[in-house]
């Protein structure tokens, strides 16, 4: 099963991938800008994400919030998202509205600044602060990502600081910052445009040339601070967070091979084998057999530079003391490290991943997003068609090599959430303090 792919590059550096599929009159437009929270300077944490909000506040020929209105009026869906390494913007529209979606994206890539005002910035700053309150501060375990980043990356590393940012830094962001960030990062040569679905390639090429062709190339972006890191932490890391949560929860992170590398696929299979669905090791042992956990899972962050993270996530049952939660998870990881994995477990993990990979390509938006991702990180959108084979080629011995290297005691970082209320009872306190 392969999806068709064409690529070309405009003179201004914009890289374009096209993938036709005429089964339904739907087309997805997807833009990745190769900028994320990693590119933020000191004192401006959260800026990449705040900037994403500003991109919906209008541009030279589009009014405030009109981007949303025009796409919804056309019967389309849209959004944007910010991650450590990239920011993406996407819309799926009826195929006769392709020109509209492309024009809107081009207008804000070419001429955002004329529409920026202090008032819009102030409002979106408030919206983002409320997003932080909603998703991070007033949500159990909502601080997980920023606490983990802080725990596992060294202080000057681009992945070390919070993606949503601090309230203080959000308050400090100015219109000058907007102009500077836009000029540096929102340039055609720092972006990938993908179109997937029902369109004619020649028509799409003409529209892209007309709309995006006149936009000037950027002047280059400052290099990121050095990102490469040793394969392991070197010593166990641990942080305890006493928080307004009901159940103890352990996130145990391991440095793992970067997204897209040969070893990444073995890491991804390891993560599925440990925590994907009910037949996974952690679910079977901790939730079903030993019944000390209410839930268990594992995932990779899929970072393409420096070092990726594989994270094991286990939520305790109410009666499980924190110390026991940590001990039992450690024991499972020790056992994995000592004894390795079976062929059968690897087969199960690969079968589940393969179904998910293929099923996910049903949606035009997903296809376009993955094309943009592979083009942005590796300059090779055709990697989308190689994923099934990459996973199929992972053997138990590859997983065992990875596990041997990365799951030892020198590569574990534990972030432990402990209910603040429970701390008052003595045994919980003893458990939390005496865990190490």
């Amino acid at each position, binding site marked *: *099963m392969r999806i068709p792919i064409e690529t070309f590059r405009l003179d201004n550096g914009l890289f374009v991938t096209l993938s036709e599929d005429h089964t*339904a*009159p*739907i087309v997805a437009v997807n833009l990745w800008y190769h900028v994320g929270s990693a590119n933020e300077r000191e004192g401006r944490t959260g800026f990449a994400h705040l900037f994403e909000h500003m991109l919906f506040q209008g541009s*030279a*020929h589009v009014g*405030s*919030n009109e981007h*949303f*209105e*025009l796409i*919804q*009026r*056309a*019967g*389309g*869906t849209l959004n944007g998202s910010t991650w450590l390494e990239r920011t993406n913007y996407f819309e*799926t*529209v*009826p*195929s*006769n*509205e392709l*020109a*509209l979606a492309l*024009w809107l994206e*081009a207008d804000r890539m*070419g*001429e955002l600044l004329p529409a920026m005002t202090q008032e819009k910035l*102030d*409002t979106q700053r*408030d*919206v983002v602060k*409320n997003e932080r*309150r*909603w*998703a991070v*501060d*007033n949500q*159990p375990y909502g601080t997980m990502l920023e606490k983990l980043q802080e725990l596992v990356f060294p202080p000057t590393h681009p992945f070390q600081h919070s993606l949503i940012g601090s309230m203080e830094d959000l308050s400090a962001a100015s219109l000058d910052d907007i102009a500077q960030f836009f000029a540096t990062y929102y340039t055609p040569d720092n972006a990938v445009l993908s179109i997937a679905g029902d369109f004619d390639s020649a028509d799409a090429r003409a*529209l892209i040339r*007309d709309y995006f062709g*006149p*936009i000037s190339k950027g002047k280059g972006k400052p290099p990121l601070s050095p990102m490469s890191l040793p394969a392991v932490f070197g010593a166990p890391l641990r942080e305890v967070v006493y928080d307004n949560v*009901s159940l103890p929860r352990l996130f145990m992170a391991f440095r793992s091979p970067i997204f897209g590398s040969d070893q990444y696929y073995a890491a991804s299979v390891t993560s599925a084998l440990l925590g994907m*669905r*009910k*037949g996974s090791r952690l679910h079977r042992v901790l939730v*079903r*057999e030993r019944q000390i956990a209410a839930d268990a899972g594992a995932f990779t962050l899929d970072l393409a530079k420096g070092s990726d993270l594989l994270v094991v996530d286990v939520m305790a*049952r109410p009666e499980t003391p924190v110390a026991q939660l940590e001990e039992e998870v450690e024991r499972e990881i020790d056992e994995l490290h000592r004894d390795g994995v079976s062929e059968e477990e690897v087969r*199960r993990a690969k*079968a*589940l991943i*393969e*179904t998910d990979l*293929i*099923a996910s390509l*049903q*949606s035009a938006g997903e296809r376009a997003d993955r094309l943009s991702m592979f083009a942005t990180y590796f300059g090779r959108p055709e990697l989308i068609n190689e994923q099934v084979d990459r996973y199929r080629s992972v053997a138990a011995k590859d997983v065992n090599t990875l596990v041997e290297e990365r799951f030892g005691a020198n590569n574990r970082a534990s972030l432990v959430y402990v209910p603040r209320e429970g701390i008052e009872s003595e045994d919980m306190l003893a458990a939390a303090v005496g865990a190490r």
Partner: protein
Amino acid sequence: MVATLRPKSGAPRSYRFPAFVDERLPSGIRVVTAQVSKLPVVTLLVLVDAGSTNDPHGKEGVAALAAALLLEGTAWLSGAEISEKFEQLGTSVESGADWDSAFVKLTALSDRLEDAAVLLGRILREPAFPEREVERLKAERLAEILQLETEPRGLADEKFSEFLYSDDSRYSRPDEGSADSVASISRSDVEGFFKANYRANSTTVVLVGDISTAAAGNLVAKAFHNWPSGAAESQRLIATPRTNRKRVHIVDKRDAPQSELRVGHVGLPRKIPDFFPTLVMNAVLGGLFGSRINLNLREAHGYTYGASSYYDWRRGAGPFVVSTAVQSDVTAPALREILLEIERIRTTKISIEELSLARDYLDGVFPIRYETTGAIASALATLVIYALPADYYDTYRTNIRAVTVDRVLEAASAHLHPDQLQTVVVGDARVIRDSVASLDLGELRIHDQ
């Protein structure tokens, strides 16, 4: 310089919701199949008329528990073996119950579908409900209930339902049960519920994907033969409000940085004559990014990350609710804006621009909703659960386009009741109490969380 002129729409290409075959097996099981051959993927969805509204009084949560336990063991396979067998086939089965039905579903690659379907049919015919698994799933549900105490969104939803419906309405209690009701459920309650409700004539199998409808029909006949015939007794749906007077409830959460707000009243059952005008009305009020409530609270005031309104459609009258989270110090002003928007849409006509935004969106987005086999299977399930006509999806867009400004006003004035609004605020009572009390929201009650 980017082109300054906005492009015009091209000529639209036609779209039809996938054709489907709807038939009944000799055993009484209904089978709905649709061939969608874009990718080698199939979704199988089993629906049983055994939702949470069938829970006996005092045993709330048994429908959800029974559905989850279907996959936790038979006489010949343990729960762990069941997971393992499906996952080796590259699929995992999900099961559960919502208000109106129990469901079991899986998505598999086409070449593994037959094995998965036959296995599923055998497992569902004779679940053993092992005692150990019953007790484990009960304990996991109790852990979830405990989690809710520190999870403001879920807590607000649950308290809202509790304050909205009368005690004798099943909707006043959580669909998966409360701590007391779950603790009281025994293995024999689960088995009794299963025997009474899981009958051939109460069951529909939906199969959508890369398989011909003929092959799909044969596969279902093979995998699901031999089910006990007969149908479950139908349950009386009670959806009466707890009170006809407006009231405001503060659920106290010390030091909360935001207030979770729910404002609404008992809404409407899914099958009503003016469904389409009501849908468009809600889209204008709070159903879209560009709706009045979101533009007001988020884009004009910056009070929130997002605000919306919706009807929770069920067979009986589910809630109509405006839902948002705002920073604590603007709780009262945000509530005032919500009340104004509800009042405004029921007393004055919406503009033609607002009508066309909602109508064009609902009409245009229609094909985008059915890109995946999972989404198409859910859409077919909706037809079955609410007994909608077979041409429902073929006439959907015409029905949306027929809605006028006048019909929207009629729907709003008939179905929105400002004098009956129940308001729930999960937030810091010390900070918000006085300002909330000064609003015209009815009697104020404060609850310890």
